[in-house]
C-alpha cells in the first residue's frame, strides 16, 4: 500500500483516512522515508520532524478509530517552510547560516492551526536565506544549498519557498506551507509544476513567521491541485489576535466548482512581453482552454510605476526588518555573496520615497480592484521563464532586471492568486498559468483553477526520476 499514496491529492488521501483504508501512521512513515531518502537529492529539507510526525500520526489514528474525525487534513503529512516557528527542539533556521542552530520555544499560528486540523508535520523545508530579502540573484542562496528542481536536476526549484515546491513536486509531502512577499509561492509552484496559492494579505496569520516585509508577507499552501490548496487554506485562514493584520473574515472553501460554471477572464495588454517563447506558446494554448470555460477579454491598467512601488516597499521594510543583521555585519555569514553587501545599498531609500510608494500603493489597489471587479480573474503566465540553471543568474523583478506587473500589483495590493502547471518549456521544465482575483476572492481564483484542472492533465504529471 505504501508508495501507492505518493502523488495522490490531499482530497483522495483524506477519503482513504476517513474511511480507515489508509493509516495516518503508514502515511507518515511513507513520507518520512521519502523525505529521508530523496530530500537530499533536491536540497529540499532542513529538518525531518520524525518524532513529532509519528506522535501526531498515532494520535490521529487513535482519534479516527474512536470516531473523532477532524476533517480533510486529519492524518495528512505536510511540510512547512523553515521560517515558521516550531517548538519541541525543532530548529527554525530561516534558511540562513547565522540561524542554523536556532531553536524557538513556540509554534507559529499556522503550525498550531494545522495541528488542530489533524495535520502531521513531517519536515521543515528548505528556503532561500531570509526568504530572499537580501537581494539574492542566483539559486545558491541557502545554507542547505540551492533548491534543485525534480524535473531537471540541473535547474533551480524556484524560491524563496524552494523546498516547499520541490518536496511537493517530488512526492515527499502531499502539501506544504510556503510564504510569499513577492513571488515566493508562485515561483516554486510554477517552476516545479505544482499548484500554489497566495492568499489575500491578512487572510492567514503570520504570527511566528519570519518577517521580511510587514505589509507584503503572506503564507499559503503548495499542493498538487487547486482543490487541495482550498482544503489547506480553510484550515489555516482566520483572524488571530497575535497578528493584528489578520482580517475578521470567515473563510469557507466550498470544494471544486460544479461543471458548467462560466467564467470571465481578463488578460493585461502586453502581458507576455519578455516571456520565453515556450511560456508564451503555452499561455496562448491555455487561453484557448479558458475560452471554453468562459470569456477572455483584454484589459488595461493605468500607467503607474507598479514594479517600483512594490520594490521600494519591499526593500525599505526588509532593510528595517533585518536592521540588526545588516548593521552589525552579520550578513557576511550568508551563503550568497551578493546577500553579504547588497542590503547596504538600501540606506539610499529616503523615508519620503517609501511613503510615496505607500501612497501610490493605495492608488494601485483601487485601480486593480476596478479592473478586477468585472472579472473572475486576471490570467497571465505564472513566470516569464522556466527555472534558471543552477549556476546561472536569473532575472528578477525584485531587483529591477525584469518586469512583473502581475507580481507587483498582486503583492503590492495584497491580492490572491493561484498558479497551476500549464505545459513544459525549455529543458523539459514546467511552465505555469496564474489566476489573480479581487481581495478576499480566493474561492473565485480557486474555482477558475479547479475548472482549468478539470479539463487539463498537467497537474497529474510527475517527474520520472522520483
Amino acid at each position, binding site marked *: 500500500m505504501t508508495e501507492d499514496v505518493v502523488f495522490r491529492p490531499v482530497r483522495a488521501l483524506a477519503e482513504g483516512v476517513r474511511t480507515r483504508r489508509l493509516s495516518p501512521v503508514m502515511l507518515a512513515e511513507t513520507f518520512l522515508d521519502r523525505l529521508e531518502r530523496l530530500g537530499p537529492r533536491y536540497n529540499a529539507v532542513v529538518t525531518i520532524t520524525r518524532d513529532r510526525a509519528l506522535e501526531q500520526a498515532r494520535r490521529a489514528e487513535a482519534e479516527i478509530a474512536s470516531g473523532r474525525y477532524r476533517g480533510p487534513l486529519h492524518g495528512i503529512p505536510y511540510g512547512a517552510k523553515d521560517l515558521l516557528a516550531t517548538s519541541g527542539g525543532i530548529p527554525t533556521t530561516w534558511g540562513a547560516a547565522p540561524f542554523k542552530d536556532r531553536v524557538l520555544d513556540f509554534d507559529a499560528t499556522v503550525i498550531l492551526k494545522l495541528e488542530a486540523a489533524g495535520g502531521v508535520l513531517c519536515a521543515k523545508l528548505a528556503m532561500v536565506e531570509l526568504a530572499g530579502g537580501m*537581494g539574492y540573484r542566483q539559486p545558491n542562496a541557502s545554507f542547505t544549498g540551492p533548491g534543485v528542481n525534480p524535473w531537471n536536476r540541473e535547474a533551480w526549484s524556484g524560491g524563496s519557498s524552494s523546498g516547499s515546491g520541490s518536496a511537493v513536486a517530488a512526492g515527499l509531502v502531499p502539501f506544504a506551507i510556503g510564504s510569499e512577499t513577492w513571488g515566493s509561492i508562485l515561483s516554486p509552484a510554477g517552476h516545479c509544476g505544482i499548484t500554489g496559492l497566495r492568499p489575500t494579505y491578512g487572510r492567514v496569520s503570520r504570527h511566528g513567521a519570519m518577517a521580511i516585509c510587514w*505589509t507584503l508577507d503572506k503564507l499559503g499552501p503548495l499542493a498538487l491541485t487547486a482543490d487541495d490548496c482550498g482544503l489547506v487554506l480553510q484550515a489555516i485562514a482566520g483572524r488571530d489576535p497575535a497578528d*493584528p*493584520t489578520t482580517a475578521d473574515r470567515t473563510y469557507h472553501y466550498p470544494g471544486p466548482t460544479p461543471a458548467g460554471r462560466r467564467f470571465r477572464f481578463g488578460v493585461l495588454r502586453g502581458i507576455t512581453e519578455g516571456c520565453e517563447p515556450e511560456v508564451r506558446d503555452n499561455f496562448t494554448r491555455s487561453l484557448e482552454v479558458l475560452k471554453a470555460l468562459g470569456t477572455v477579454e483584454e484589459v488595461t491598467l493605468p500607467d*503607474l*510605476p507598479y*514594479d*517600483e*512601488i512594490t*520594490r*521600494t516597499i519591499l*526593500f525599505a521594510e526588509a532593510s528595517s526588518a533585518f536592521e540588526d543583521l545588516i548593521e552589525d*555585519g552579520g550578513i*557576511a555569514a550568508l551563503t550568497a555573496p*551578493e546577500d*553579504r*553587501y*547588497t542590503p*547596504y*545599498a*538600501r*540606506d*539610499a*531609500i*529616503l523615508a519620503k*520615497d517609501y*511613503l*510615496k*510608494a*505607500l*501612497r*501610490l*500603493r*493605495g*492608488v494601485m*489597489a483601487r485601480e486593480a480592484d476596478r479592473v478586477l471587479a468585472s472579472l473572475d480573474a486576471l490570467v497571465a503566465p505564472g513566470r516569464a521563464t522556466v527555472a534558471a540553471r543552477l549556476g546561472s543568474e536569473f532575472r528578477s523583478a525584485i*531587483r*529591477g532586471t525584469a518586469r512583473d506587473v502581475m507580481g507587483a500589483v498582486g503583492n503590492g495590493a495584497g491580492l490572491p492568486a493561484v498558479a497551476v502547471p500549464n505545459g513544459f518549456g525549455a529543458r523539459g521544465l514546467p511552465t505555469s498559468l496564474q489566476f489573480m482575483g479581487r481581495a478576499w476572492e480566493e474561492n473565485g481564483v480557486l474555482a477558475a483553477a479547479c475548472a482549468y484542472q478539470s479539463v487539463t492533465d498537467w497537474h497529474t504529471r510527475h517527474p520520472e526520476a522520483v
Partner: protein
Amino acid sequence: MSEPEAMAAEVETMLALVRERYGHRLDAAQLAAVRTSIEAIVQAARALRAVRLTNADEPAQPFAAYRADP
C-alpha cells in the same frame, strides 16, 4: 543640470552615505555592485516622484490608536 546628471549626482550622494557607513566592510568590486543597486533604487524613486498625488492620497497603511484592555 540635465536629468541624467541630476540622477548621477543623487547616486553619488547616496553612495557616499553608504561608503561612510559601511565602506570598511566593502572591497572595490562590492562597492561597484552597491553602486549598481543604488542606481536602481534612485531610478525607482524618481519614477515614484514623477507621479502626482493629491493631499488626500494617504499611505495605504493602517494605524490604530492603542489602548490596553480594559
